[in-house]
């Protein structure tokens, strides 16, 4: 547990002291959404119709931005060797890294998303569900994305390979996330969609650390 906390604390410190990565993600998210009304026109009905999808697609693309560096910096300066050689289980330590990554790149998106949805004229019933769906969905994105980041570690075309590898796996999260908000704004229950998002998160939480730990062990060989 002390190793888990040490790694979590270190990654949060690193993110706070060089906030560039987290800021890039947040800035991309805000700017991309701000541009949509200019592109599709300012009619409230139109914007309200696409709001959920736009927020979710942009969140998904934004979360891709910081993924590549998730393990790369540690691999480049040898810190990954120390993590792999730590006596604590690597699967557990990997979770600390992903938690830190989500806290610094996913959580800010969850917090600003309702504000941006306001700008997109999302119906009032949708805000709570949007925040909940993002809060359930973005950790899954971080977990699934980390698999791709670990697999493409050391690959020369990692930047191209990573999205190709993980975007197909992101699609279920996107579908149920956007559908939950749509259901809420259309007066239906968002519960089934949110439960499915929670199920995806539970599955990712259980399976991703093993996959990531295995690919990291491969990468340091």
């Amino acid at each position: 547990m002390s190793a888990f906390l040490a790694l979590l604390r270190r990654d949060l410190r690193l993110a706070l002291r060089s906030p560039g990565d987290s800021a890039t993600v947040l800035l991309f998210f805000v700017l991309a959404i701000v541009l949509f009304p200019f592109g599709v026109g300012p009619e409230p009905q139109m914007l309200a119709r696409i709001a959920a999808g736009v927020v979710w697609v942009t969140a998904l693309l934004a979360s891709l931005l910081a993924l590549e560096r998730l393990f790369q910096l540690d691999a480049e300066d040898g810190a990954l060797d120390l993590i792999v050689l730590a006596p604590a289980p690597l699967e557990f330590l990997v979770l600390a890294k992903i938690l830190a990554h989500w806290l610094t790149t996913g959580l800010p998106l969850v917090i600003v998303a309702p504000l941006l949805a306001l700008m997109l004229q999302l119906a009032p019933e949708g805000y709570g569900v949007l925040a909940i769906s993002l809060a359930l969905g973005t950790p899954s994105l971080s977990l699934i994305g980390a698999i791709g980041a670990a697999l493409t570690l050391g690959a020369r075309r990692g930047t191209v390979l990573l999205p190709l590898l993980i975007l197909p796996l992101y699609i279920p999260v996107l579908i149920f996330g956007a559908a939950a908000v749509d259901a809420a704004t259309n007066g239906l229950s968002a519960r089934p969609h949110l439960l499915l998002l929670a199920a995806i998160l539970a599955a990712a939480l259980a399976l991703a650390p093993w996959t990531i730990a295995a690919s990291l062990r491969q990468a340091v060989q």
Partner: protein
Amino acid sequence: MAWAARASPLPKPPGLHLRRYLTRWRTDPFWAVRYLFADMAEFFGEALVCVRGERQVFAGVEFRLASGGALILAGPNGAGKSSLLRLMAGLAPAAGGVIVWDRTPIADDPDAHRARLHYVGHLDAVKPTLTVAENVAYAAELRGAPAARPLLAQALSRFGLEALADLPARYLSQGQRRRTALARLLAAPGELWLLDEPTLALDAAAHDALAAALATHRRDGGMVVAATHAPIALADAATLDLGARR
């Protein structure tokens, strides 16, 4: 016969280690007997083969270390010094042969092996935005040792870093970064030290500090394996010349 072919030094009657016994009896007829009654911590490797990217780096490498022992890995660039260290650390599996700690192959109990070793690679793994003290404390906590202040302060002062403790590591010189990496050895316990070019960029004072740390560690029963080109102050250390083998 699978049981004979498997190079596993589990404590079985000597007769079961048929193949190993047959290859060894010529030079050391009582090896199996000595082996069964040895009570010291022992770290050895046998018939090691290392393959990197389809190229065989070395084959048939052997080493043996007892408590308090030291081994220097020598050889030209590309002879496999770093690769052998990584095999010893369990970072990479050997393509052939076996590495054993106290009669258990390290591949059979990787958790216990990781808990006892310190690895200082040729990269310093020092984060530029963290301070020197944070870099060292993090590494100690990662190894499960709560970063006790006295121990941390001692580790820093042994390598002359106490004045730099609160300085972000990006302002350090290369030698100071190397000293930060080495200070980690003292901040958390570890029986086996695996050092890759530990003296790189070190000045004379840091050299002496490292020599003193190594001597203390060995006096306490620790083992040291160092891959190096530069002469390093390790009293009566065995030398394994990987370059001479080819």
